[in-house]
């Protein structure tokens, strides 16, 4: 988000992450741990943030693909880890990883969109798996995964947006994750990011702006989510303490509310056949300067991030360039 990563820190991060890669593919939460999709997602994105070929080069793509396929279920969903739970978080993590590493194959993508569609509930939001309650975190997972696949039209977008808009609370300005629940800073990304993705799904332009109230969200983040103690960091709400999870997602939400990140409707590439359509579609996203809307002092401004990958554009572009210069493991997506 604008901070320098020192060479020592970068080297330390690389070696730490290297020790967590499983010999049979994927990353675990620590060395000798079973590889886990959420940890693998975090590891791959962290490596991308290091912006070096050395870091990107440690990922074993062939093994990764094999592991992803072993986690894949017959209904199009993914298991979080061997013997683990199956839900839409898995679909999101798997597709983020596969799309970035250039290992999107039909075996990875088959049935994913259909599974996500089944997670859309009577409320309109997306749930962890079919049947359970619509939820902000899982809505972003579903929408972002569909954006990677170029399939967001499989959802009932009208019901989805109707549910999403009610998640921003009129008084607080922040988002809740489910109906009749309290606001929580982390949904600034999960729900705010969903609005950014929805913008493209609905083919809305920058001039039309996002559907949610960008200033109200920034006000909530700036006034309520900054921990006032010496430790600093960002938090769920006043009275709670800060942690790394909330710091990450509150900051991402702030970024998305400040910048207009989108793809203008006339430029949308809808092709989804070739594996090379993936980087083209993903890298179409960008911040449109005209859409900048910063609440308060300009020192509040943070870098724009990609709504799917939740990291800034420059390291993302480098990682995409690196992995898509390597031979793909399959030519087509379907």
């Amino acid at each position, binding site marked *: 988000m604008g901070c320098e990563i020192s060479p020592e820190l970068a080297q330390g991060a690389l070696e730490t992450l290297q020790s967590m890669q499983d010999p049979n593919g994927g990353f675990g939460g620590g060395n000798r741990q079973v590889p886990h999709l959420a940890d693998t997602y975090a590891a791959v994105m962290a490596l991308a943030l290091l912006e070096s070929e050395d870091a990107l080069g440690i990922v074993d793509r062939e093994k990764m693909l094999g592991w992803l396929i072993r986690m894949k279920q017959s209904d199009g969903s993914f298991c979080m880890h061997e013997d683990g739970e199956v839900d839409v978080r898995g679909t999101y993590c798997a597709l983020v990883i596969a799309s970035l590493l250039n290992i999107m194959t039909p075996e990875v993508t088959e049935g994913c969109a259909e599974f996500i569609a089944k997670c859309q509930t009577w409320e309109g939001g997306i749930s962890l798996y079919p049947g359970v309650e619509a939820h902000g975190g899982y809505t972003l997972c579903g929408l972002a995964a569909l954006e990677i696949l170029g399939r967001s039209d499989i959802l009932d977008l009208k019901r989805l947006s109707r549910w999403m808009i009610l998640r921003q609370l009129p008084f607080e300005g922040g988002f809740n994750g489910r109906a009749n629940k309290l606001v929580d800073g982390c949904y600034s990304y999960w729900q705010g990011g969903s609005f950014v993705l929805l913008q493209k799904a609905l083919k809305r332009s920058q001039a039309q702006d996002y*559907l949610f109230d960008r200033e109200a969200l920034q006000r909530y983040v700036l006034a309520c989510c900054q921990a006032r103690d010496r430790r600093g960091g960002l938090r769920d709400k006043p009275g709670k303490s800060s942690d790394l999870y909330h710091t990450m997602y509150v900051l991402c939400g702030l970024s998305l509310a400040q910048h207009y990140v989108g793809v203008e409707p006339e430029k949308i590439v809808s092709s989804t056949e070739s594996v090379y359509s993936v980087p083209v579609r993903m890298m179409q996203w960008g911040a449109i300067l005209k859409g900048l809307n910063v609440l308060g002092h300009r020192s509040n401004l943070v870098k724009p991030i990609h709504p799917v990958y939740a990291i800034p554009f420059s390291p993302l572009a480098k990682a995409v360039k690196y992995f898509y210069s390597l031979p793909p493991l399959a030519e087509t997506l379907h």
Partner: protein
Amino acid sequence: MVQVIESEGVTILPLSQQDEWKDVVPLAQEETATMICPIAYAEDYKEKMDYLRALMAKGEVSQRALKLTSDVIEENPGHYTAWVYRKRLVHELETSMEDELLWVAELSEMQPKNYQLWHHREAVVEMLLDPQSVQGMSQDERVAIPVLRRELGFLAESLDEESKNFHAWAYRQWLVHTYGLWDQELAFVSVKIDEDVRNNSAWNQRYFSLIAGGSSLSAEVVEHELAYTLEKIKLAPNNESPWSFIVGLLLRHAPAELYQSLLPQITALAADEEYLSAINGTPFYWATLVDIYEQQAKDVPEKQKEAIELASSACDVLATECDLPRQKYWRFRQTQL
């Protein structure tokens, strides 16, 4: 150096000083000098982890391994690798599933929001009671089976404790679905809604139990739900859940009922002196009108023009009076009519 721990008058020696563990060479977490963000583990936990890693590396199946996973998980329930190993141990050692369930239950009370724990609980219950074995039984017979009776009781308690616990509701869905406990579910859900009419998780469970694993609803059920929901709206008009529930249900199962039944009933309510100000003041009423008229415009060609005008003026009310913070959305919605 691991310290000797005194707990409740009992001295606990570090594993390295216990005879039982003499044959195991602990496997430390590989740490490089440049390791970043190391977690400051307590020394005794770190030692247990080192022994656990060693046992996992050689794939040992033993009681001491099982005990060690208990210790590690009790201190760090998010340790999914320990859970994976434990599941295998429980299976291969043929340990008492009753004991396993008791252990998980105790842990659930302390850790109600942990993914691994609820997942493990499903696996244990399934090992304890084969879902095939309840086929052909009546609902009363099923809920009388000790495991199921206890799980339902445990869930009722968990949801008393925290009525919107996502994991508890998800687990309840799994239990109801796996063992066909559909007939008792609606009564349970109705109690939860009576306790808190704003409990959206309970409204979601209501839909789940009505559908009961199928995909359609009978006309009687639809009619009953309409009347039921309307009563709940009267209790607290500015409550998203019932409004959203009835619109969502009708859109999926009986869209014509939106304008044939729901519309006259809610407009009557909006004209009723007792509810007039509350109903007209809530954005959910106007938002529901938008949904209803939009459906009517789609279904009934001769009413199309009028319905679109009515939907549009409901959007106006929302954008200018009732739901100002969301006006951008209502203006967009207006353009979509």
